[in-house]
């Protein structure tokens, strides 16, 4: 097995270290510098070595090593020491070289010369590019309009998030908008109310004996996917005489469902009811973990507050409303199955229930998620070996305070374009999908500038077309994309970033191992083209803007920012890199591309539960408090709930409960639930220009290079549709897509399934004009309560073309 060659790096960095001083890092005083041209050349000089870095095909952050021969990257494999993937990769990871060497990459900064969207570009220098950005931003700021800059981000990782947020703050715009509202925000919100941590959980899969997944694409798209794949192998065969039972509740026979021991087909958006039906059996048969419930949970029994008011408890609610027979009527899952699953779950410890997008991105999603999580509380698997864990964050050095001048203060007081946190979306931090409408209607004000970083709204937004209108309206659009994607086509300036194999960046592992893991993404080859790290660009822009903006960035490059923040890891004296001086720490960090701080210590209850009760909350007091704040008073909550289109009232609204989902489209006209889903090869929507991924697109149905619609064979016959026929899929908005139908026994009769990834209008010649984009059919149905999109609320009709 090829070994990582350390010699070159050590030789190269040795020169650097000799020039370093041994003092602590302070803002403005870099300790180590980036590789010189000479050092870069050494890397390319007839060498054949494996260099460590971090993959960038999805958010997980798996460590990889890249074989570089004569300056060419020729193979990627997993980094053996990385705690998450331990030397393994997914197919996307293997295919990273097709990102680096994509022939359609942008060669250097460009500016638009013709009409917006016409595709006429002129190559310009970085000086000109940055000067243009600086002058535009300066003018805006001078006119008191800095808040009309919207910085839209998608797959932002590591310090780039902090850097961009800091930039927005210092410059003076409240409009930093991330894309979580079309991703996992509702799941995180639910976790926040149960444990006080608004984040995803880690899971100790190595010790799990029963995995009950509610629609989670565990083996396909649930970061960190490779860890899931690896540990699935372990759960099945890694322990003698012990084989974890895996049950998949799903609206479709996915790969995860196919490899599970049992697939439980369920009516979409009713998973919460199923979980509560199981809770009924677990509670009524007294199978729950009495000890855990008594000591570490809140709201299981009815309780009385300080004012003497009695509140409903989880137990009462469940026993009242969720008997298996009632649950069968709601979910379509037979009551014996509900009972059996419940008994299995409760008697096979450690047992874990998980849920994600397909459950939480519904109009009743927040409560669905809470219901599923409640099962872990009932059986007491939470923060126990084999169960969910609350990931400890990496101890980065805190950012220095942002100096704000008057202009910035005033600007930051302005309302957000996406209305997050207002009474339109009281609990949301950002509402990505609200932007197009806001921009088009100048609501609350016209947008003057739009910056796009690692996001492609003209592809990823519901309906898609409203974004085009918005893009046409904004006078100044800058994209940092290395690829000419759908949205970048409408930009005025493109300042291409490096692709991930050319880039320096820290990548903190998404919640998974429970203990913090930080990987270092570093260039394994010299940049192929005239691209620049967006972090460097923003630092330079900030400095050129002068004043407090420049002061907010006492660093000269992204690397210095990184070194500043990573310093905290060294200072904490935690983790697996021991060094007396920071330069040695940094050198080792670079050499391994990895820092981690095992082990996870279970049972740190005061850290794990940051709720008002300090316990796992069945009764979400945090939710009540937030709603009270948004409504003005506790008494006004019910009125607010009505306005938010939530059906529950009173205590029930803060407990895991089921309420019927809202659909976009009436079921008579639009008989099918629409299920757009993610494939393993779906590289966060960025895979359409990667030919190998396209050629292995769909495993189960042997599909390649094209979009398809999975439909149940009996229903298809009824509609006169044969396998391979072209069909129209139409949404209530009147938008329709023509795709091939594939008859699939794993499709529910009431659901049609279409994979994401294709349907671009730009993004390179392999991606352009191929396939269909299911986002076009997705109605912009947003949950007012959480601000999250409900793509699965969309209903469609299907007919032969």
């Amino acid at each position, binding site marked *: 097995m090829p070994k990582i060659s350390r010699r070159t790096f050590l030789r190269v960095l040795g020169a650097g270290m000799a020039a370093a001083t041994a003092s602590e890092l302070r803002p403005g005083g870099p300790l180590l510098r980036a590789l010189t041209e000479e050092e870069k050349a050494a890397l390319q000089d007839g060498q054949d070595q494996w260099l460590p870095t971090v993959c960038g095909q999805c958010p997980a952050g798996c460590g990889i090593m890249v074989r570089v021969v004569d300056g060419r990257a020729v193979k990627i494999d997993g980094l053996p020491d990385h705690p998450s993937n331990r030397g393994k990769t997914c197919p996307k990871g*293997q295919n990273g070289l097709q990102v680096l060497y994509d022939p359609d990459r942008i060669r250097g900064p460009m500016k638009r010369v013709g009409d917006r969207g016409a595709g006429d570009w002129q190559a310009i220098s970085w000086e000109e590019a940055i000067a243009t950005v600086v002058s535009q931003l300066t003018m805006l700021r001078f006119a008191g309009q800095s808040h009309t800059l919207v910085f839209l981000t998608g797959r932002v990782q590591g310090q780039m998030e902090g850097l961009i947020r800091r930039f927005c703050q210092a410059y003076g715009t409240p409009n930093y908008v991330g894309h979580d509202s079309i991703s996992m925000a509702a799941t995180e919100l639910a976790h926040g109310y149960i444990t006080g941590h608004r984040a995803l959980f880690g899971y100790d899969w190595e010790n799990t004996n029963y995995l009950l997944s509610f629609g989670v694409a565990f083996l396909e798209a649930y970061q960190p996917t490779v860890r899931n794949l690896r540990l699935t192998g372990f759960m099945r065969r890694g322990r003698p005489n012990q084989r974890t039972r895996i049950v998949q509740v799903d609206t479709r*026979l996915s790969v995860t469902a196919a*490899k599970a021991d049992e697939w439980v087909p369920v009516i979409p958006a009713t998973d919460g009811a199923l979980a509560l039906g199981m809770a009924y059996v677990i509670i009524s048969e007294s199978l729950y973990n009495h000890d855990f419930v008594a000591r570490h949970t809140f709201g299981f029994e009815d309780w009385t507050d300080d004012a003497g008011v009695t509140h409903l408890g989880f137990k009462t609610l469940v026993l009242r409303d969720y008997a298996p027979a009632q649950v069968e009527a709601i979910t379509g899952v037979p009551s014996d199955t509900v009972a059996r699953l419940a008994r299995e779950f409760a008697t096979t410890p450690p047992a874990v229930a998980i849920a994600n997008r397909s459950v939480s991105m519904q109009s009743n999603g927040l409560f669905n998620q809470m219901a599923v999580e409640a099962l872990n509380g009932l059986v007491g698997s939470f923060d126990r070996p084999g169960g969910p864990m609350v990931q400890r964050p990496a101890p980065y050095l805190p950012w220095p305070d942002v100096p704000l001048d008057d202009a910035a203060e005033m600007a930051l007081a302005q309302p957000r374009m996406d209305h997050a946190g207002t009474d339109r979306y009281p609990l949301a931090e950002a509402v990505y999908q609200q932007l197009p409408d806001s921009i088009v209607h100048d609501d609350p004000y016209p947008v003057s500038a739009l910056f796009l970083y690692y996001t492609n709204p003209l592809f990823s937004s519901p309906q898609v077309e409203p974004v085009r209108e918005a893009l046409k309206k904004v006078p100044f659009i800058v994209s940092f994309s290395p690829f000419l994607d759908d949205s970048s086509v409408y930009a005025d300036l493109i300042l291409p970033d490096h692709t991930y194999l050319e880039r320096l960046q820290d990548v903190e592992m998404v919640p998974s191992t429970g203990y913090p893991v930080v990987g270092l993404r570093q260039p394994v080859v010299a940049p192929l083209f005239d691209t620049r790290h967006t972090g460097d660009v923003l630092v330079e822009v900030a400095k050129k803007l002068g004043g407090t903006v420049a002061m907010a960035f006492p660093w000269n490059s992204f690397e210095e920012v990184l070194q500043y923040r990573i310093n905290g890891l060294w200072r904490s004296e935690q983790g697996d890199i021991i060094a007396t001086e920071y330069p040695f720490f940094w050198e080792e960090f670079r050499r391994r591309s990895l820092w981690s701080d095992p082990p996870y210590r279970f049972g740190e209850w005061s850290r794990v539960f940051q709720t008002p009760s300090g316990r796992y909350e069945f009764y979400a007091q945090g939710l009540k408090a937030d709603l009270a704040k948004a409504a003005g008073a506790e008494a006004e909550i019910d009125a607010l709930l009505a306005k938010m289109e939530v059906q529950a009232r009173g205590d029930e609204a803060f407990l895991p409960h089921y309420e019927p989902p809202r659909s976009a489209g009436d079921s008579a006209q639009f008989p099918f639930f629409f299920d757009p889903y993610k494939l393993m090869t779906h590289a966060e929507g960025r895979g359409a220009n990667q030919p190998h991924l396209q050629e292995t697109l769909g495993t*189960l149905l042997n599909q390649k*290079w094209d979009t398809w619609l999975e439909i149940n064979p009996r229903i298809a016959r009824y509609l006169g549709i044969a396998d391979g026929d072209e069909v129209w899929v139409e949404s209530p908005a009147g938008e329709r897509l023509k795709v091939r139908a594939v008859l699939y026994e794993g499709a529910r009769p009431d659901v049609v399934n279409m994979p994401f990834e294709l349907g671009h209008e730009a993004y390179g010649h392999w991606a352009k004009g191929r396939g269909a984009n299911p986002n076009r059919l997705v109605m912009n149905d947003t949950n007012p309560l959480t601000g999250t999109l409900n793509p699965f609320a969309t209903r469609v009709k299907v007919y032969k073309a």
Partner: protein
Amino acid sequence: MPRWAMVIDLDKCTGCQSCTLACRMENNVPFAGQEQASKGRAIFWNEVFAYAEGEYPHVKMTIIPRPCFHCENPPCVKVCPVGATYKDEEQGLVLQRYERCIGCRYCTVACPYGVRYFNWYQPEWPTGTDRYQNPNVPLRPKGVVEKCLYCVHRLPIPACVQACSSGARYFGDLDDSNSEVAQLARSPRAVRLLEDLGTEPKCIYLKEGL
């Protein structure tokens, strides 16, 4: 000399296709593109195929990763008129001499497992993609047959075995009774595909389930 064999544990396999991608990248297998792939000409030295049995909701989906099986009694070697495919007895591998293949495709037709592929055109490496070619594996011209060689150039760990995310693939010496593959081959879950044809395939599958 080792008698190389592979074991694939279907209970651990998660159908992710890392093996397929790793193999393609390691062995310079070009992609066919949409048109040629739709005509059934895409090359997959390792192919993950799936098939469904049963009717909704009682559907069984089987996912099987399939490399070449490097049979002990290979039907393909028998029929090659020029010895372009041959059995390396020292290692127990069925290998290819690309420079000798006349492209008659008899071997592709004789293999009952369908593990062989043909270069219908000169393989295309669009600008840039030739940069990530592996210098240790020869490029094939048009008109010749190719297939999985158990990464003979980088033994003892083929790319697919290294890349398998769930650790479902094993590789080793079947003649070493203590090796992992030899032990797994004796497992009650062990099966080989189309065993009754007498090809004696050296890729052993372990069935799903307990």
